[in-house]
């Protein structure tokens, strides 16, 4: 079949880790010849609906992006273009037959990384730097904290939010502030956090993508998230003429192969690694489910 015409609309520059997950998956799919991919980046809230409409009018069949800042308008656009499928990152629910949503649930990996961190901390203080306390971010940080507490109930967990989704230097400052408060392992929900850890010679955990090559001595574990399974599911639905008005989040779960942990062997003790690997297997088999706590972490 001819490749499906797919458009990506990124509110942030595609360097932003989350967008880069989408972008990489879309590029890979294009390379595989499954789709034809066009995209816009750095699209502000004001321009976002226009970009959606333009891509729809240009004959793209599937539009991938993020509705977070434009939840209401995005659904209005979808209603105006019933023949185009929209699958957008969203905190809300699907709507109609052509507006699907997905969340970013890589909390399983975060929990596992927390298990390693909990055993590794010497100061017994770990920290997390997040963007804005929205449910997904909260869930992720809570999962990390839960992982830490699961193996080290006495550990203290610090949380800071930088108030924006993409400001690495600010995330770095927030990370430094936490190190000053005693943290010796940082969970960087946001890029920039690991820079603080690196500067002070402590360890860090990355999120969404694999940061270990970028910070070799610093980042020992990453809660990966892959967009490809979600994308594949959406493409399949569109190709089959099925409505996309559903929630694709589950395709991103570890159980479904959407997310995972990668870690540097030997950073934590082998017992810690073994304990973690056991839980990892349990998650994959469905025997264990990481708690989903969406409240703002304290």
């Amino acid at each position: 079949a001819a490749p499906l015409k797919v458009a990506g609309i990124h509110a942030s520059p595609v360097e932003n880790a989350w967008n880069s997950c989408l972008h990489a998956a879309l590029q890979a799919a294009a390379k595989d010849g499954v789709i034809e991919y066009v995209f816009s980046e750095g699209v502000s809230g004001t321009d976002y609906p226009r970009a959606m409409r333009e891509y729809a009018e240009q004959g793209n069949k599937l539009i991938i992006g993020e509705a977070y800042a434009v939840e209401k308008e995005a659904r209005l656009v979808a209603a105006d273009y019933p023949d185009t499928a929209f699958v957008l990152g969203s905190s809300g629910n699907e709507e109609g037959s052509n507006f699907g949503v997905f969340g970013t649930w890589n909390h399983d990996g975060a929990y596992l990384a927390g298990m390693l961190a909990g055993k590794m901390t010497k100061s017994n203080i770990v920290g997390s730097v997040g963007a804005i306390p929205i449910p997904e971010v909260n869930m992720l940080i809570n999962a990390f904290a839960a992982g830490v507490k699961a193996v080290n109930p006495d550990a203290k967990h610090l949380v800071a939010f930088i108030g924006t989704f993409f400001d690495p230097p600010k995330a770095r400052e927030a990370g430094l502030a936490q190190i000053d408060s005693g943290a010796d392992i940082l969970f960087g929900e946001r890029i920039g956090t690991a820079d603080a850890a690196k500067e002070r010679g402590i360890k860090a955990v990355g999120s969404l993508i694999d940061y270990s090559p970028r910070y070799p001595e610093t980042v020992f574990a990453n809660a990966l998230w892959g967009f490809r399974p979600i994308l594949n599911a959406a493409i399949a639905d569109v190709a089959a003429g099925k409505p996309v008005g559903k929630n694709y989040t589950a395709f991103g779960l570890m159980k479904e192969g959407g997310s995972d942990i990668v870690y540097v062997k030997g950073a934590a003790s082998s017992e810690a690694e073994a304990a973690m690997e056991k839980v990892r297997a349990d998650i994959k088999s469905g025997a264990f489910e990481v708690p989903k706590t969406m409240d703002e972490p304290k």
Partner: protein
Amino acid sequence: MRFERREQRSLLLLVGAPFAAIVVALALSGILIAIAGAPVLEAYRRILIGAFGSRLSATETLTRATPLMLTGLAAAVAFRARLWNIGAEGQFYLGALAVAAFGSQLLAGLPGPILIPVLLVIGALAGMVLILIPLWLRLRFSVDEVVTSLLMNFIAVLIVSMLVDGILKDPLAFGWPQSQSVADHAMLPKLVSRSRLHIGLAIAVVLAFIIAFVQSRTVFGLQSRAAGLNPQGAVFAGVPLSRTLFKVACLSGGLAGLAGAIEVMGVRGYVTTDLSPGFGYSGIVVAMLANLNPVGVIFAALFTAIMFVGADGMSRSLGIPTYIADVTVALSLLTMVVALFFTQYRVRR
């Protein structure tokens, strides 16, 4: 080399200069487009298509022009009285915030035909409140308002940021820092269905004509110009300086606040800290392009919107970086102010 003021301006110059500016701006962005490896002539064609090649692009251009007209008017009326209101961005946000606050809960019970005008007035009032601080500082302490009104923008955005993350936060927005939505019946009627174009455009155009009339025909218009050109002379002639500047400030801040209100009620429905992609600052650009003429503001806003929406669409269809749209608008502004200069001055040895 020196410049000499022209007392007479030929029609050719008045029409030709802005035209030349557009040509130069397009040529310069053409270079950048070529560097990106895209066909330049095709890019120009796509800009036109992107700006009004379809119903969608035409309505989008007009939608984008609407807030620009209002913030452009805000700058034009203030600048004409030499009140350097650089704070339209902040006034825009406060207008939007006020509408979101009153339109979502407090007054949402009112029926639409009453609610909409009431909210528009509230938005304008909120904009006025913000500009009165720099004005007061100027009248009371003779503090130049360029810097104070600029600084107020950041305070205003921080206030918005605080409130949409605080008491105005929409509990249904999944933790996102955004205000509650205004009631559905508070949204402005659409001008074209299946588009974003709303009657705010008509409001802006009508206001431009009203302001043009006020400035050229009324006592207030004459007095505000006198106050701007020579405050001391105006006082001597009995122009109530503070009162005149107060009125000008209210008009300017009100228009900027109205722009924010209309953007919320016409397009977005709620407030976030990224509601405005710099509409307040672009308003200054628009006002300058229009040479501070209110009717000219309509066209300058259209021009700015065409450049932006057109270049944005072009970048999408040719796959070159989207930032080219902002570059093109900025180049148009810079070449246009230079062109306007040469309609007023001639070069002499």
